């Protein structure tokens, strides 16, 4: 007992530290994923789904349309709700993500918006996230570059 008494400040310090660490760990408004995992999930477009695949999908899903006001896209999709991208992290919208047990499918007319939102949500710990893409193959180069073999750098300064 006497020994414990002499250690009480040490234990007090450790307990305070533990409480602080726990409070921080369970703060919902913080990122806590490994970015490497996010990269892994996004490579080779594993995280995207086309319209045709969506039609064929036989599990439940929820489509989130990220369009805002003027930019709101008029594509009509079943089971879709509109969350403007600015309000993505509002409490009410957060609960939608949290409570949804189905696949969440992000859609926006602007591919860059969905890409950024996907990373943010993935980092917040939502795993069942897909990006709806109109293209069959996103991220392909649509043109053909033809090298000009007649170029002589020594004759023509750049």
């Amino acid at each position, binding site marked *: 007992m006497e020994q414990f008494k002499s250690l009480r400040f040490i234990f007090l310090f450790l307990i305070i*530290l533990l409480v*602080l*660490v726990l409070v*921080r760990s369970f703060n919902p408004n913080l990122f806590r994923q490994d970015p490497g995992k996010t990269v892994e999930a996004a490579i080779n477009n594993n995280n995207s789904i086309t319209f045709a695949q969506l039609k064929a999908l036989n599990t439940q899903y929820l489509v989130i349309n990220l369009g805002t006001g003027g930019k709101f896209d008029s594509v009509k999709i079943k089971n879709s709700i509109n969350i403007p991208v600015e309000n993505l992290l509002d409490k009410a919208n957060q609960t939608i993500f949290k409570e949804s047990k189905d696949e969440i499918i992000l859609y926006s007319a602007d591919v860059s918006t969905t890409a950024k939102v996907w990373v943010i949500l993935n980092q917040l710990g939502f795993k069942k996230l897909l990006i709806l893409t109109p293209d069959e193959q996103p991220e392909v180069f649509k043109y053909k570059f033809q090298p000009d073999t007649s170029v002589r750098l020594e004759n023509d300064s750049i």
Partner: protein
Amino acid sequence: MGPLSIISEFPEWLNLLIALFIGVGFGFALEQAGFSSSRRLAGMFYGYDTTVLKVFFTAAIVALVGSQLLSFFGLLNLKLVYVNPYYMNATIIGGVIMGAGFIMGGYCPGTGISALSIGKIDAMIFLLGGLVGAFLFAETSPYIQTIFLGNYKGAMRIDEWMGVSTGVFTFILIVAAVFLFWLSELAEKRFSRPEITSEI
């Protein structure tokens, strides 16, 4: 002044002022710990006084734990902390030279300055030697460059090299420290030289 996010906005003169206060504190701590005596430092090698190990290991652990906790609480951006690049040859050769100088001179550079400031003559000569060495190195560096730039490993971190998380590595180091503290107290008993330690 580096990565502490709350003070990153301070003007230059204030940063320098803070650096001055930290420096004064560091020097004071060194002197108070008795590091301005070469016998205390040499004691580390003969085992009769292991204060050096305790102080520096404690400092390392406090810095390690502190920076990680601050980073965990979002107060410190560890990304901005400079990691010294690792030149393997330079580290080994320099370590041997430094160790030899340490035991022969009885000071490391920091404690040398601490001892100089309380007027120890051996420390003055020690630091003069250090300056001569630095001068010789600077003059000859083009010829020995291939040696000391060899085996460059970049900004390497031991936890990444071991493949464990930073936290686990911290724990391992703490266990090692606790073990070494125990061992050093044993050594102090075993090799005790009361005629020296009473004078420091």
